[in-house]
């Protein structure tokens, strides 16, 4: 019932029962389906147990630490798998011998490429679901921070910041942050899958696609590493090394965006105290949540545009 309602929101060609989508997704054997369900069940029970533990012990710090690396790892895996699933889109069709036929039709190529892009979300739905549930646990912890001081915690953190904002604006910005935080893994997968589509369309040699894919993954992993370590340290830990150098607002904003967009995708920023420090330390830091949402929306739009452009390019007749 719920899944029918969910899929009814999709364009017809993006629903799993559409012939193109069926041919991409293929059938899943019963044993594999059961294994996936068991794994998903275990993840959900595990996260639920962690949430209950957090509620009972009120030790949010332990929960944050416990979930942090598994969640970052799952996010990285989702992004990389998203890239690999689409980077051979054209090569796979060529191997099947359907590419030339598709090119003869009016909408065959664009539809197939867009379907392959959307299929990534179907294929990664369990992983993305687990990631989003994990991130919702962090949002729960953030909300629990906001309930401190009988719901007056936000008032405290916006006092004395530059520029001054009213509580209503601060709440709106927090809502924007929370929205971006939930949407970001989906958008990250959309972007990586779109890059995969571009690779498959622009580079025909499989070996070259593989090398470029490794390069993209390498750059991404480097960004994640820098985001999780150095940027985290600069923003959160403020070690003594920082006191020896000037830490300008530009540097701060750079580290902040790197940490939020590539590092742990904003997980560390779900601590209200951290956000409060950012608001006090950086000029216009209070607007981080709004900027974060804007970047996520723009990234989503860019991913969509990249797929549309790649599909148009691929649909052009090949010169012989």
């Amino acid at each position: 019932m719920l899944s029918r309602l969910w899929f009814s929101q999709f364009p017809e060609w993006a629903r799993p029962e559409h012939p193109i989508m069926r041919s991409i997704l293929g059938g899943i054997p019963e044993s594999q389906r059961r294994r996936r369900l068991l794994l998903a069940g275990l993840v959900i029970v595990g996260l639920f147990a962690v949430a209950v533990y957090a509620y009972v012990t009120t030790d949010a710090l332990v929960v944050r630490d416990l979930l942090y690396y598994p969640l970052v790892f799952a996010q990285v895996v989702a992004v990389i798998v998203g890239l690999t699933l689409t980077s051979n889109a054209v090569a796979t069709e060529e191997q099947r011998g359907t590419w030339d036929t598709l090119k003869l039709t009016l909408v065959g190529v664009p539809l197939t490429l867009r379907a392959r892009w959307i299929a990534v979300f179907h294929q990664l739905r369990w992983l993305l679901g687990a990631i989003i549930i994990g991130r919702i646990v962090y949002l729960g912890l953030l909300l629990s921070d906001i309930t401190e001081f009988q719901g007056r915690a936000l008032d405290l953190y916006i006092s004395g910041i530059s520029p001054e904002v009213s509580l209503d604006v601060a709440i709106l910005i927090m809502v924007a942050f929370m929205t971006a935080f939930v949407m970001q893994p989906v958008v990250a997968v959309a972007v990586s899958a779109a890059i995969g589509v571009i690779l498959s369309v622009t580079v025909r040699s499989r070996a070259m696609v593989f090398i470029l894919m490794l390069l993209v993954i390498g750059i991404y992993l480097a960004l994640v590493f820098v985001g999780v370590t150095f940027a985290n340290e600069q923003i959160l830990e403020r070690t003594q090394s920082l006191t020896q150098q000037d830490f300008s607002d530009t540097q701060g904003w750079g580290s902040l965006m790197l940490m939020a967009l590539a590092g742990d995708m904003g997980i560390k920023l779900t601590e209200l105290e951290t956000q409060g420090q950012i608001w006090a330390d950086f000029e216009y830091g209070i607007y981080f949540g709004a900027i974060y949402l804007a970047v996520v929306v723009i990234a989503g739009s860019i991913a969509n545009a990249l797929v549309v452009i790649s599909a148009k390019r691929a649909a052009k007749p090949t010169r012989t």
Partner: protein
Amino acid sequence: MRLFAKLLFVIFMVNGLVLGGVAAQRYFFPTYVETMLATNDACGLDCWFGVAEEMNHRDVAVQIDRAGGRDQNFRGSFMRYRLPDPETGENRGMIQVTLDDSGNALQVCYFPKDVTVGDVISTFGDPVKFYLDSNSRREIFSRISFELEAYIVHFEMIYPDRELVFEGDLHINLEDLQEQGVSPHTRISLMCNPGTINYFWLNNYPDWEGIYVELEDYFASPPPTASDSRDAFIDPLQFR
């Protein structure tokens, strides 16, 4: 893309509702300080534990008994009480009422165990002055880290317009004062109201700038050598 926009809208609205609900908590729950000070309707926050200025010491005893205070000792011009948690019986702090020569209440002070800067600000709003007493610093010896220059520094939060003063100790690292601010979780060790607060150096005290603002801003220049012109407090904890 339409699905993305729909999803974004739905998540935004759900988050808005949840966060709005959380923030609306303030309209249903009084602050921790208000609950603990057992203020009465007649004088509100200006009258803690029901003790009003110039109240006879017998009436003070009755009011504090009503607020749940347990008689600790009565020495000269100080009446001291212990405030147990009504549910657990655990000690929540000490109340000290200073009497004038005629035996009337002059000042009520509270030495709380678990009140924080955040609790105070969410009750009384932003203070007018915040002062870090650099002369009071005491070194912290840490077994883990020897290289950090960590100190405990005394601070005062002042609301001169309401004659309120709050004091406590702040853990600071002198090497990077620019990177540290006042955490809302910093514990308050003394709250006094109302009274004869007559701050001689008040004009030199730095203005309150906010939570997590550089600590450097809160060192008075030139730093006063004594905090105020009141009679020195005798820490009631030493009589335990």
